[in-house]
């Protein structure tokens, strides 16, 4: 009587499944956790090291931190449920996934590991040339146009200068004003030999949409002694000069005539924020 096989009820069948699951370790379950943990670590690594500044607008900082913590939490809660419960029916839908699960897992894990090993770089002058340097910097309507007048000329950053020029574009108005600007060297093909552009990127959302702005620097000798992409802090005065633009017509522009040029290490926070 005791040996009589149990009727195939649903409960019975579930027990069979559990037995099967216990025999071999559930690799796919744990690999998914590894993917979640690696992505959580990657996002938190960017937040802790400050490298997120090279990738996204700092407004997104908390979004990245929360996402990183959330991914780690999901993997921890899943693991606890898995260990504590004997009948964890995990991921039984493998046969119906859109993408081979192995492929997705490998891809995501590979990217996360590559991200953990290779640090993002600061966008270079090559990207700046590809994107086209803009001299027009629009203001959002929430930014009052009078804001620049309150900043002393020598304290204006590159973005302040470009904004000031946008608000009132006559270069003669700034002739002789002192300036101290930080930026990287960008050699524009249309500029004469003794000029380079002191440039920086502005980020609105992420590095993908960063666009460069710049102010020409007038040297006495050939500008090629300053290689592209090195960072300089230039002190000098502003002057009005005639420079060829892209369509080879001369335009009156504001340029910086340096009295002191100092090479500096790449700043940790190299981009301007669009709302700065």
């Amino acid at each position, binding site marked *: 009587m005791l040996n009589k096989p149990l009727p195939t009820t649903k*409960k019975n069948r579930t027990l069979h499944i559990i037995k099967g699951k216990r025999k071999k370790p559930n690799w796919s379950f744990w690999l998914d956790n590894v993917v979640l943990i690696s992505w959580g670590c990657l996002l938190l690594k960017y937040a802790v090291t400050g490298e997120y500044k*090279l*990738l996204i607008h700092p407004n997104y900082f908390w979004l990245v931190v929360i996402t990183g913590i959330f991914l780690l939490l999901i993997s921890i809660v899943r693991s606890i*449920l898995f260990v504590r419960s004997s009948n964890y029916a995990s991921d039984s839908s493998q046969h119906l996934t*859109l993408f081979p699960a192995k492929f997705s897992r490998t891809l995501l894990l590979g990217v996360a590991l590559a991200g953990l090993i290779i640090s993002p770089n600061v966008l270079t002058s090559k990207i700046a040339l590809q994107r086209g340097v803009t001299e027009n910097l629009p203001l959002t309507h*929430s930014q009052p146009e009078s804001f620049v007048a309150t900043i002393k000329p020598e304290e204006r950053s590159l973005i302040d200068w470009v904004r000031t020029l946008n608000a009132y574009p006559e270069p003669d108005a700034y002739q002789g004003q002192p300036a101290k600007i930080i930026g990287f060297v960008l050699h524009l093909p249309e500029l004469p030999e003794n000029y380079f552009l002191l440039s920086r990127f502005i980020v609105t959302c992420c590095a993908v949409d960063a666009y460069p702005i710049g102010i020409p620097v007038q040297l006495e000798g050939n500008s090629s002694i300053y290689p592209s992409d090195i960072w300089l802090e230039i002190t000098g005065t502003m002057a009005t000069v005639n420079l060829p633009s892209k369509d080879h017509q001369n335009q009156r522009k504001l340029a910086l005539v340096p009295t002191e040029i100092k090479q500096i290490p790449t700043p940790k926070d190299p981009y301007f924020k669009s709302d700065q």
Partner: protein
Amino acid sequence: MSQLHNAFTLFLSLLVEAMPFLLMGVLVSSSLLLLVDERKLITKIPSNPFLGALVGSCVGFLFPVCECGNVPVARRLLLKGVSPGVAIAFLLAAPTINPVVIWSTWVAFGDQPRIVIFRVIFSLAIATIIGCIFSVQKNAKTLLQPNLARRFNVLVNGRSREFNKNQESQPLLLQSGTFLLGTSGQPQKMEALLTETLSPVVALANSSKFQSFLDNVVLELRELGGMLVIGSAIAAIIQVFIPREIVLNLSHDTISSIIAMMLLAAIVSICSTVDSFFALSFAATFNSGSLLAFLIFGPTIDIKAIGLMASVFKPKIIIYIFVIVAQLTFLSTFIYSYFS
């Protein structure tokens, strides 16, 4: 080599920016799976194609997700049996017709309120029109990516079997994570160890429901994350190896500048919550019609999102959607430029 490193940086930048929104979308989709009864949901949506599409377009107001977050939600709506027209209208409108995006557009273009107003009107109109077009197709299966269609089949069949109380169909139900939802007869786990520490919403659900929620989150993150990686990689490579200047130099008159800005929108793959600030940087060089084209086209179609859309629809359907959106965007912004 430095170009490769640049491409890698841009690729990571796209992913790091999109991942939070993808997670948000996946969480919304997974809670829909648990909390919303599909039969009630379907009866609430008007059966009239136009009204249905309009409702679908406006649902974005409830789920403030951008173009990475709306794909999992739209996919869930389709799997819940919502008609394709409504789901596609949601897919196209949600990234624009939501409070966050409208607010950020207002901050950027507050001095040109016409851009803000027409962005909303044109996006809503385009999404509703395309929703109406696709509502002709009542059977979602023919639009869906084959594997998703199979999942859809299993779900629908499973649902009808569940209604019949057919006990023999239960093992089949167990084959899909989404299946666990309605199976109240399934053996319940006794552990309630986590209910105290969980959020109130989750605490309402029993632990097996919570498990299926987690499983679904992981499943969708893995699938859509994979597609996002591919889409972002393509977008980053295009960014580095095709100079943006080439696209911008295309613009000579109204028509060509609208086309140039639409191309730029597709290439840049920028998130809709901030694209208006990006568009603002072109305000001096482009007229408001082409800026509008960027703001309408960008959120619906970009390379990064096409990867995600490929996880829902057949390639043919994506091309249809792409072509119709492009045409309607072009037409509406061209007419706008003509009259402004």
